[in-house]
């Protein structure tokens, strides 16, 4: 609140990664130097892929701990808090990758407060690396500041890179990095003087993202299997597989709302993507508005001549008209199916449709449920659909569900100067399929509560993770089989998994959070159940939701189904609530923020009209 009256003693970020599972604790200790009580706030940011697991405040010797509860139950308390005028929500979206957790509390004169926030996430491998992202924004230099990360990877560490957008030449040498075969230690702890923008200044130069990237060794084709305390996890990402040729139809929205930057960025991205196509790939372009066009009536091999021709075509895609998603996707599907039927594309090749759109369907079939049904039924589980939602006007959940129903995934493309790179980046992730129809099998008698073990594809640079519970706690090894379809041949690999002796691997460590495999399994299971709760039959959705809720409560994860209730000492009856935002909620928040900016002159009285459901058409005079 009053910066001159608050002394931040310490701010610490401690991250422990054990086999991709990251456990981060953010701690801050502050002193109210004023001779009267005042509000002190704790604002931190955490990755949107993480689940908060714990939060506590220690004030005058008493510790106030957040409790994870079922969202509906927490909401009742929340509503009470809102009705009494409190701002109860603690978590807000923050940029593309993060969400902000903020809490403030009244501290007596000359008293300390200690805030501790803990969150966990399974790091995802993208483009051949994992990323640990920490955002730090202390307003003032802090007496004790540190970011420490310890990475334990029994599989072996291939490389570790550290960078931060606030690291000046002065600060760079302060980043310590020690990498051994299976452990990496990174620390950054500038003194108060080193934090200052200039000698004697109040401001701090520590403000931004601290990013650690690393990858692991991949010596075994079978992947790496770890057995710890009755749970196992299997990481599968073989390093030496040839890529499978792909047949890709780019279905590109060129409706009126794409005009300007979005269309230009799409053209630029397509130029780069088409140039990067492998010669054995086949491709087609289907730009659409209310009219469905196509570069050619079937897919063509990505020869230099064809790519050159397509590049010219792409330059002439201009925005105009309305949005007919249904017919455009259908056109793409029909082209793929017809080419398959007439054997114009290789038998062993991977079919995909990449749909890019920035808006809701508003002509042709505009009922999104019917579009989803049509697309699902036409694709018939054979082709992957990837959807890119450009900007904030698109209904992300529509694309998310449609992709999930069709072996693909959805991604948001944020309207910004780097949208071209975002589009290219997404394409790179899916550009090189290595295997399709993958099955990872484990002895039925030895495991249960298995996470998804069938995957429609594996892309170069990504990783498949399967975890499960062992039915026999004393089991030290078991057989693992992996089947898939690769380039030219089927892929089959079999091996025996053995429990790693963690004490032998890391003899100097007293304790590496011992239940990490179980928590990793729980995190992965909850994520997959949450995905399942969006698609499928009503009873399947309800079961998945109930199971995810039960696990989130058991493992104390703040998920979209649970909330953390935080009781402040000065408002026991009005608790605060920390929620997990879904991508749709984030998008809604961003949209509202953008609208508030663009139409900030919009008079407040108009609010009442925004909520009415019956349209009114009228004519009147001023």
């Amino acid at each position, binding site marked *: 609140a009053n910066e001159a009256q608050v002394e931040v003693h310490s701010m610490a970020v401690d991250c422990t990664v054990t086999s991709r599972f990251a456990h981060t604790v953010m701690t801050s200790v502050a002193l109210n130097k004023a001779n009267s009580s005042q509000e002190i706030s704790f604002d931190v940011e955490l990755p949107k892929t993480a689940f908060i697991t714990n939060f506590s405040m220690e004030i005058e010797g008493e510790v106030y701990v957040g409790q994870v509860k079922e969202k509906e139950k927490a909401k009742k308390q929340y509503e009470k808090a809102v009705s009494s005028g409190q701002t109860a929500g603690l978590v807000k979206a923050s940029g593309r990758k993060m969400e902000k957790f903020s809490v403030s509390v009244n501290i007596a004169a000359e008293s300390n407060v200690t805030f501790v926030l803990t969150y966990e996430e399974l790091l995802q491998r993208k483009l051949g690396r994992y990323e640990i992202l920490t955002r730090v924004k202390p307003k003032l230099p802090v007496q004790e500041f540190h970011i420490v990360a310890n990475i334990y990877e029994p599989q072996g560490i291939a490389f570790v890179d550290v960078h931060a957008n606030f690291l000046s030449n002065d600060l760079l040498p302060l980043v310590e990095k020690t990498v051994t075969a299976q452990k990496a230690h990174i620390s950054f702890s500038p003194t108060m003087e080193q934090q200052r923008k200039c000698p004697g200044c109040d401001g701090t130069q520590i403000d931004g993202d601290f990013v650690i990237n690393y990858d692991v060794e991949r010596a075994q084709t079978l992947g790496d299997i770890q057995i710890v305390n009755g749970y196992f996890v299997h990481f599968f990402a073989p390093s030496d597989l040839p890529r499978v040729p792909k047949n890709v139809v780019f279905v590109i929205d060129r409706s009126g*709302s794409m005009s300007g930057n979005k269309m230009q960025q799409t053209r630029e991205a397509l130029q780069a993507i088409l140039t990067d196509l492998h010669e054995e790939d086949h491709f087609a372009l289907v730009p659409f508005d209310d009219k469905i066009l196509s570069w050619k009536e079937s897919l063509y091999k990505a020869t230099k001549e064809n790519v050159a021709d397509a590049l010219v075509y792409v330059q002439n895609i201009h925005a105009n008209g309305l949005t007919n998603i249904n017919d455009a996707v259908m056109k793409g599907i029909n082209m793929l199916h017809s080419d398959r039927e007439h054997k114009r594309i290789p038998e062993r090749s991977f079919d995909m449709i990449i749909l890019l759109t920035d808006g809701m369907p508003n002509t042709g079939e*505009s009922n999104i449920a019917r579009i989803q049904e049509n697309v699902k039924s036409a694709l018939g589980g054979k082709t992957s659909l990837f959807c890119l939602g450009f900007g904030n006007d698109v209904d992300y959940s529509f694309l998310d569900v449609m992709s999930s129903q069709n072996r693909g995934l959805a991604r948001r493309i944020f309207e910004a100067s780097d949208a071209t790179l975002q589009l290219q980046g997404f394409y790179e992730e899916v550009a090189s399929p290595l295997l399709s129809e993958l099955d990872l099998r484990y002895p039925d008698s030895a495991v249960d509560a298995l996470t998804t073990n069938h995957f429609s594809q594996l892309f170069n640079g990504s990783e498949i993770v399967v975890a499960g519970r062992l039915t026999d706690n004393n089991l030290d090894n078991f057989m693992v089989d992996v089947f898939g379809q690769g380039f030219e041949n089927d892929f089959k690999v079999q091996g025996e998994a053995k429990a790693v002796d963690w004490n032998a691997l890391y003899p100097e460590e007293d304790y590496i959070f011992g239940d990490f495999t179980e928590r990793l399994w729980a995190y992965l299971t909850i994520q997959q159940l949450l995905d399942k709760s969006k698609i499928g039959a009503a009873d399947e959705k309800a079961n998945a939701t109930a199971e995810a809720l039960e696990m989130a409560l058991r493992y104390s994860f703040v998920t979209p189904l649970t909330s953390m209730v935080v009781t402040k000492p000065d408002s026991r009856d009005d608790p605060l609530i920390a929620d997990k935002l879904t991508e749709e909620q984030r998008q809604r928040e961003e949209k509202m923020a953008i609208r508030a900016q663009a139409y900030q002159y919009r008079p407040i*009285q108009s609010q009442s009209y925004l909520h009415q459901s019956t349209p009114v058409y*009228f*004519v009147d005079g001023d």
Partner: protein
Amino acid sequence: PHFIIELPDRNDSLCFNINDKPGTIFNLVTDPTTGILVNGQIIGDKKIPPDGKINTYFWRFGIVHQTLGARLDISTKDISVFQDGEWVRLLWSDTASIKGANVELLVTKDRSLTVTLKDSVKFVILLHKVWANHPYHRDYLGFYTLDSHLLSSSTHGLLGQFYRPIDYEVTDLRPGAVPEKPDATMYVKGRELTVTRGWQRDFRRDVKNGEDVPCWFIHNNGTGLIDGEATDYVVSGLF
């Protein structure tokens, strides 16, 4: 007069003005299937204001429901209803209600008339009373369609054509001539229009001051948004 088309599904509204010579009668709603017709006549100010801008307003509406045999003539002076073979005259200065088999009317003194035509449409007409000695302005009326879902898909007219959903996209928000009213490009009915973010007033809750409704304003008498031109909706008589 200013027209507002509210689109609650999109949290948005469209608006445009239609002006013509005082005395012109416009068709607002025609539904050949149910036999409903709403026409309105405009008047101008008492004299040309100093800024030279001639403002026009609706001062009289003629409403016909052929199937029900009902006819309403509503002006700033009085309200006449033809029902069951006879004319009934109501005054704006009274609070009154009529509940017939096919037509329901509710007059709120010097303020509004709510009309419900059985199984077809419900609307409100607002009376804007101006100081009698005002040098320029006169009394005028507003017409608000509250429920039109029973009308047929062939309904047309300056308002009626919008009783069906309309598809449009707005993009390329950019500074306009007035800082607080940005311009944008609207794609609608296969056309590309320059529109301006602004607001128009809804007087239902506050007949004196109105409440602002933010909307995309379509210039030139709604050209591009409405089917055809505004002059296509000019009719020769009120009924």
